[in-house]
């Protein structure tokens, strides 16, 4: 193309640039519009999907888990709001109901467990409390964790502690569990019977004599564990919440 010179040419170039810019904005706008449309479609599809499978989500634990995972992947928390289309699911209700039951079950057992309950046991008790029909039996540990985590917003009276090896313990008495206490619980949960001794703590956690004794006294003083002075070498500290024999008898 022949190169143009002069004022007219400059003006024309300017005009062209502006036109390009306009076109660009146009394109951007149309893309945004398309995106919005796509999002709308996605939203309505998701809504449709949720509506269609509402019953499945409520009743089928496997399905519910997958749905939760899908929601987590796209960054949506179906429990975050009771408004909007999530409410059609009744997902919130499901977990709120479960949450209330979790509290009931934990409080009812507080005097026996000292306020700590293992997740497996919590599930067993929940299932027993929820009644016989299959719908009520179909709750997974994930469901309970989800419900229990929601409860933590009420303050430190209700906390879920992870103990490693996929074990969880639900604390239903007010008060923070310190790092020491959590460590002791952890050490106890790694034993078959759910008990620890001072020397075991010193060996496993590298604690000093004094620190181990102090921490054990504290746990004992809070009523979280029982002391057994009839063991051969040294006192053994037992956590009823971790003692397997407790459930063996309860189900017998």
């Amino acid at each position, binding site marked *: 193309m022949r190169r143009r010179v002069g004022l007219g040419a400059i003006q024309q170039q300017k005009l062209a640039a502006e036109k390009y810019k306009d076109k660009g904005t146009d394109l951007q706008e149309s893309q945004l519009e398309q995106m919005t449309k796509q999002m709308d479609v996605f939203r309505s599809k998701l809504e449709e999907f949720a509506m269609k499978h509402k019953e499945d989500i409520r009743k089928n634990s496997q399905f519910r888990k997958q749905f939760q995972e899908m929601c987590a992947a796209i960054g949506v928390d179906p429990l975050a709001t009771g408004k909007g289309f999530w409410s059609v699911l009744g997902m919130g209700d499901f977990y709120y109901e479960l949450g209330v039951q979790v509290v009931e079950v934990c409080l009812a057992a507080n005097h026996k467990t000292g306020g700590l309950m293992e997740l497996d046991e919590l599930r067993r008790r929940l299932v027993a409390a929820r009644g016989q029909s299959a719908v009520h039996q179909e709750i997974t540990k994930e469901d309970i964790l989800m419900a229990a985590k929601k409860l933590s917003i009420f303050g430190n009276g209700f906390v879920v502690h992870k103990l490693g090896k996929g074990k969880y313990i639900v604390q239903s008495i007010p008060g923070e569990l310190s790092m020491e206490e959590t460590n002791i619980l952890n050490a106890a949960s790694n034993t078959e019977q759910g008990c620890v001794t001072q020397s075991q703590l010193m060996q496993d956690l590298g604690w000093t004599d004094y620190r181990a004794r102090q921490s054990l006294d504290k746990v004992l003083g809070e*009523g979280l564990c029982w002391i057994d002075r009839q063991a051969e070498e040294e006192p053994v500290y037992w956590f009823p919440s971790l003692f397997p024999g407790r459930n063996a008898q309860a189900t017998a």
Partner: protein
Amino acid sequence: MTEFQWPWEYTFPPFFTLQPHEETRQQQLKVWTDLFLKYLKHTNKFSLSINEQSLPLFHNESIQRRLSPELILVILEQLQRTGHAAALDKRRQEWQVYWYTLEEYGNMVYDWIQETGQTNSICTLYEIASGESSTQMDFHGVDESVLLSALRLLEEKGRCELIEMDGSHGVKFF
């Protein structure tokens, strides 16, 4: 006789050590007192001696834990507080323990006498505790010395009179 159902705590080693934490101890004693009563009812026993070391109630062989005499005494004193036990000797080694309190036994017997129209007639303690006519009653099979203590309470209230007959007792209800 069906086998006795031990509570889960019976296999929980620290259950045999008195707990220092107040709430835990209350809980522990509650389970122990229930267990004492249930065990005695099951074996139809009405007395306990703190020195009965081999009694399964005091000793779980499978986990090698036993109740110390001091702890047994604490449990029995707790039972005494609710009217379910009484020491028989001054050293508090021999105890009478009963499922119902003496007052409850007395009332049950008195109601039964009223219902069966035996007021104003004399019956023996054996008739009341082990006689054929009382087999359906909750107090049937009660130890005669426990029954005697219960009737003494009734006597104080003026609802019966105990009569000594050749070393055994008879009773007349009003």
